[in-house]
């Protein structure tokens, strides 16, 4: 591993966001991390966790955590409640034909706590 990469990973940290039972099943909640707003999703049907930026890039609305989640084929996605643009929860790519994409974060669950990997501020 090059030193450069090692430094990069050190800039990230696992942030304990909330407890598992705080998150709605098959839906999202909004996490505050400093000035950052993160949408955290518990896709209970697939037993998968995802995190993305909360802001919808379309009209810059802090809304994605209130969107409905689901799948397109196998791809997990979230639909913005404002104008129903959809984004892949895995890659952040916009699935409804726009070029805008959203940031995604790694998530892990340990001892009933949900951790999100964030940049150290």
């Amino acid at each position, binding site marked *: 591993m090059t030193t450069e990469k090692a430094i990069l990973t050190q800039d990230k940290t696992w942030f304990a966001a909330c407890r598992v039972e705080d998150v709605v*099943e098959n*839906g999202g909640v909004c996490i505050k991390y400093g000035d950052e707003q993160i949408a955290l999703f518990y896709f209970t049907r697939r037993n998968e966790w995802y995190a993305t930026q909360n802001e919808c890039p379309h009209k810059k609305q802090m809304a994605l955590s*209130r*969107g*409905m989640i*689901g799948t397109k084929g196998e791809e997990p996605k979230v639909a913005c*409640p404002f104008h129903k643009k959809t984004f892949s929860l895995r890659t952040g790519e916009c699935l409804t034909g726009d070029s805008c994409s959203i940031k995604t974060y790694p998530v892990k669950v340990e001892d009933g706590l949900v951790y999100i990997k964030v940049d150290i501020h």
Partner: protein
Amino acid sequence: MKIIVVGNGMVGYKFCEKLIAKKLPNAEITVFGEEQYPAYDRVHLSDFFAGKKPEDLSLAPASWYADNGIDLHLGDPVQYIRPAIKLLQTHKGHIRNYDILVLATGSSAFVPRIEGIEKQGVFLYRTIEDLHLIAAYAKKARKGVVIGGGLLGLEAAKALLDLGIQDSHVIEYADRLMPRQLDESGAEILTNTLTSLGLSIHTGKNTARICGKESITGLEFTDGTSLETDLLVVSAGIRPRGELAVEAGLETGMNGGIVVNNFLQTSDPSIYAIGECALYNEMIYGLIAPGYEMAEVAVQEICRLSANSTQRTREFTGYDMSTKLKLVGTDVASFGEPFANGPEVRNIILKDSAKGIYKRLNVTADGKYLLGGILVGDAKQYNLLLQTCKNRILLPQHPEDLILPVREGKKEEGTGITALPDEALICSCEGVTKGAICQAVSDQGCETVDEIKKCTKAGTGCSGCLPMVKDLMVHTLKQQGKYVRNVLCEHFNYSRQELFDLIKLHELKTYNEVLDQLGKGDGCEVCKPAVSSLLASLWNEMVLTKGNDTSQDSNDRFLANIQRGGTYSVVPRIPGGEITPEKLIVIGQVAQQYGLYTKITGGQRIDLFGAHVSDLPAIWSALIAAGFESGHAYGKALRTVKSCVGSTWCRFGLQDSVSFAIEVEERYRGLRAPHKIKSAVSGCIRECAEAQSKDFGIIATEQGWNLYVCGNGGSKPQHALLLATDLDSATCIRYIDRFLMFYIKTADPLTRTATWLNKMEGGINYLRNVVVNDSLGMGAQWEAEMQALVNAYQCEWKVAIETPEIRKRFNHFVNAPGEKDPTVQFDSLREQKKAANW
């Protein structure tokens, strides 16, 4: 090859478009047009008065010509042609040689020689320029007259009405309106309709003189009568513009039409004439469809020459002059041989002077074939009749059924599009046949009307054929077994109606159960709210329980409408629009406490905007404590039942409309449906509550209530239709129960009642049979089901604030409850706030 087109009108443009598509290797195209604007849609010229700008009417912008290598000169009419040396000169002095010259000079309005016709205030009706002049002059005109009661004259008369000249007259020389298209009875019905719309019609009048000094003040007729007016539009027919051809020595007809052969060649083989200036078989074709066909034939001819081929593929052999028009809002159509008569012909005539409908079919004596006909007031059957006529399709046994109004319980008769041969011309503007459309679907994979439009150009002209295009598409898809069933989305292979029955049968209560048992995959934003709505309509359980919260649309999930910036609106129910001063004060106090913007809505209640999600439970606690309930402004559910003040105060009121509105609103509050439902109760036919624009509307009569259904405001307003009359309150409620249950069970998702009815076979008569005559035998069951829903009602905001697990969901940050979203911003406006722009 140098090709010069004279005239940049509709046909001249179409010629260019078609020629470009052929990509001829060394064609140099030049166009000279007299008007200032690039070719525009003359057929929709009158839309100019409805606010369309010249650009909106334009068929292609000037850049289109440049992009396609066409040298376009506007405002530069050609002055003369010298066929012997293949040369022309324009007004601005351009001198050009050509190999092929195409005359597309159209026609001009015919100006009869009447004394005084040169006075100010006398106008023609053909170009954008004419319309500019009329509009400017009309500002000071109170009375207006149109000479000419034909198609164009009536359109001009409509324009005068649109310009606000309420006292408008039409003068026709013949004994009836539209003498070329209509017989006496048809013209009589049309005259009655137009008169009732405020036009004065004078037939059998010959104008002798136009009076006034410099400007027109009136008309005198040969019978000695006269008519005052401030403005006159002359629309007495058209004259082909053959002046260039006459001067050049080409063969022309009496009226100046340029004589052409089957290939649109004039007497000089290098010169073609197309459109309204061309005289074919002693006939001028004053319509767009034959003009486009001429353009097509001329283009093929030119391609043939350029390829040095001797094989001719297409000929012009005349054209059907059938037309369908909307005149001042009334359908008028005439097709085939509209006047056919005599021993060989059977005339079938339907005339209803009260409804303003006249229909005439001319059928062969043996009843087998349709020769032609006339439709006034209702021309829905035009397309099919025209096709039946043109393609000599065998008529059904009782051809009269084709024009009779559909009787109750009877399906609409007709030969149907399936009977049409492949050559049947569906889009006459672009000359697209049934075969071509079906092929686009089967071979080129078009599965939407838009794709077909792109692929074949069908429906891109006047768009009148689009319904048939769609039917053909569905039919072809069905034939291929490819018919896409009306399924919900990729997760459910059922229609909404099928799912409704299945969920009920299996007694499923949650979205997850439904998905597991009836669907596949993990759901999406389409099926989740649709299934949630079904569950609510079936069981009326609180929508946020049993894990159903995240399958609701975001608005249902937070029991409020999300608005710009991410705050929510709060709408308490105010049944019938009636509210006590005490409750008004509470609304004011709550709004002050939480800093909300307040507004009276269009639904007779009050909306409070700008609430943070974390404030919603407290706001609702205060409102509920004061006796309010949720207004379901966020749900696909009953919205408002508006009322007018009715017999309690109003001197005209026949019944107590406020009390009834409140009763109705309280009965159906919270009822979830495929889309929102709205209602209103008016105390008399003055209709101050606008009941006829509602999903179901009630109007008081001396005896009781008239019930109207399936009205709609929104982007495509539609008046509600009368379902039953003079009902007592209990019967009225029973009918509404049945009507709503039938709707809830059978409509597609997000379909308002108006759209639902529009798609229903048999329409209002069928619906009336189901609801009033109980033809399906479901009446009693539906009433019982509705009663169960009514009994299960609870205010969902009350449940939400009283249930801790639900209440805690109303937070912006899950890890910082109570903290508000810091990105929300407001601006101030008129002493209140508004959402910051996005």
